[in-house]
């Protein structure tokens, strides 16, 4: 039996850095906004009502408004597309690294993480410089005469998607690498031996066995992707909002802390429900 006090640091960390912020966020979401930011300690469901309805400034009547739902939906779609792209790029990359000779693996893994030694903001701006009308891509395309006018690469959903993929790709590659590293390649030989061609062997043996890695990588890309702030702000030019920007705005210009907290709480709830469903399904398949 371990002495209970040895658990104190772990419990304190969880309480201070995880439970407390979540509690503050949740509580703030049901309070009344103060005029210049902050909150008045007066319970109000207004923040959650605002998510779905627009309150008329004159007669206080509510009309259904999907603006915020659209932003939520767009965030889910953008993050979803980024997750799928990361998967398509990440799986072959992870496979390649995991099948290198033992001495080379760490070198390749380091190369994957090198860009992350640079601050995310700097990287995002660098991507913007590459994509913008005067950037090198459009410069080359125009100088060789492929296009007359610059292609609109920056300030749109495409740029945001590219930003998300480049931000979160290693979070897909690393868990997949770990899963492939553990993969017993004699199973692949067994599949070929049992009359599976390459495609069938991949879908019937490789993918199901790599599933835990796929799920881990998918969550690690999707969850920060939904709430991402920098990519839509810089690469989207602030034109197409994602949930992260909307939340940020509530704490800055709009000074509506409860609404920002409510958005954050909903994002968290959606994520938790999704996680719960995935965990339940995984547990059921284990049994």
């Amino acid at each position, binding site marked *: 039996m371990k002495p209970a006090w040895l658990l104190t640091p772990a419990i304190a960390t969880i309480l201070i850095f995880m439970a407390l912020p979540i509690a503050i966020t949740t509580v703030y979401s049901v309070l009344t906004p103060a005029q210049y930011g902050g909150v008045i300690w007066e319970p109000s469901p207004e923040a959650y009502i605002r998510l779905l309805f627009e309150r008329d400034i004159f007669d206080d009547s509510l009309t259904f408004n999907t603006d915020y739902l659209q932003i939520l939906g767009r965030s889910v779609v953008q993050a979803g597309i980024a997750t799928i792209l990361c998967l398509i790029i990440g799986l072959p990359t992870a496979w390649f690294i995991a099948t290198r000779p033992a001495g080379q693996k760490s070198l390749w893994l380091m190369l994957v993480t090198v860009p992350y030694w640079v601050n995310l903001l700097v990287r995002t701006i660098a991507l913007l410089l590459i994509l913008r009308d005067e950037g090198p891509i459009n410069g080359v395309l125009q100088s060789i005469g492929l296009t007359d006018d610059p292609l609109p690469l920056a300030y749109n959903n495409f740029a945001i998607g590219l930003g998300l993929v480049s931000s979160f790709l290693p979070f897909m590659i690393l868990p997949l690498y770990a899963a492939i590293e553990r993969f017993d390649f004699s199973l692949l030989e067994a599949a070929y*031996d049992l*009359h599976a061609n390459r495609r069938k062997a991949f879908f*019937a043996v490789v993918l199901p066995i790599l599933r835990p890695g796929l799920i881990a990588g998918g969550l690690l890309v999707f969850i920060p992707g939904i709430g991402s702030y920098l990519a839509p702000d810089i690469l989207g030019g602030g034109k197409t909002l994602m949930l992260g920007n909307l939340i940020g705005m509530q704490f800055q210009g709009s000074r509506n802390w409860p609404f920002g907290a409510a958005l954050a709480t909903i994002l968290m709830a959606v994520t938790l429900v999704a996680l719960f469903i995935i965990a339940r399904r995984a547990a059921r398949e284990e049994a």
Partner: protein
Amino acid sequence: MARVYGKGAAAHHALDHIDLTIKANEFFTLLGPSGCGKTTLLRLIGGFDQPTSGQIAIFGRDVAGLPPEGRPVNTVFQHYALFPHLTVAQNIGFALRMLGRPRAESAATVARMVALVGLEGMESRRPDQLSGGQKQRVALARALAPGPKILLLDEPLSALDAKLRMRMRSELKALQRETGISFVFVTHDQDEALAMSDRIAVMQGGRIQQLGRPEEIYEAPANRFVADFIGGANLIPARIGANGAEAVGLGVIPASGAVGDAVTLAIRPERLGLVADAMRHPGDLGPLRVAERIYMGNELSFRLDGAEVPLHVTLPRGGVRGAQDFAPGDAVCIRPEPGAVRVLSS
């Protein structure tokens, strides 16, 4: 047929001039120490590797360039390679699913295979819920389900404990008889090979050293390697003289050959009798001295000094012949059974 890895002087001849015909409905064993080429040969038959030169035909059809999935051959892997995410039944039915067999037919085949290997009631278990012996059976059933013309077995018993290994030997043999397909069995365990095989190919250095029935291999080893690897033998250097082979410390042993030739005499330890030097008969060899007596339960093993190499003799305990016993230091002679001495060219 040959398989060479690398090129030029550094080339490693994993298989060298292998010419082999495996018969239908035969339990055929490739026997040899690790690195002898037996697994390489198995992988060539299975299609996991391609020969550098030569050809492989399965029932008259050249399978060059055919990938593993296209060959009428299935494999029981050394560590089974069961699919961990599939149940026993799904593992056994895997090949049928890949071949696109109708569902009902597959289910019937799987049920038949489950019964064949005695795994009824285990169908919905996963590999990690099975014992070693059960995994072994799943691997067998899985490889047999698609109805291969040849079953390849890569040291399938090596991961089992001794007792289970003994039982699986008879089961494998019975399974081969029952299914009537050729088994090609790879092992480094000579007891396994002798107990199960119709024919054995003893391999060493990428070449087949001897090919024959277990009795032939054991009783009439073709060379020093086979004599030593199978069952262990006393290998005694000798030279052909006027009256037979002359060996230091032993005397003259009847043997034919050109006078002056250096030969090796191979004698199995269990085909030698021991007599006290005082009771010596003509034809007994010696005198030698007992250097060590080892008690091994059902038999006694003696190490004898006095010849050019130490000699080993094992005597059964109990029974008519079991009355004999000697102590270290005793002067003894060895008495080979008739036909026990094999003369091999050195």
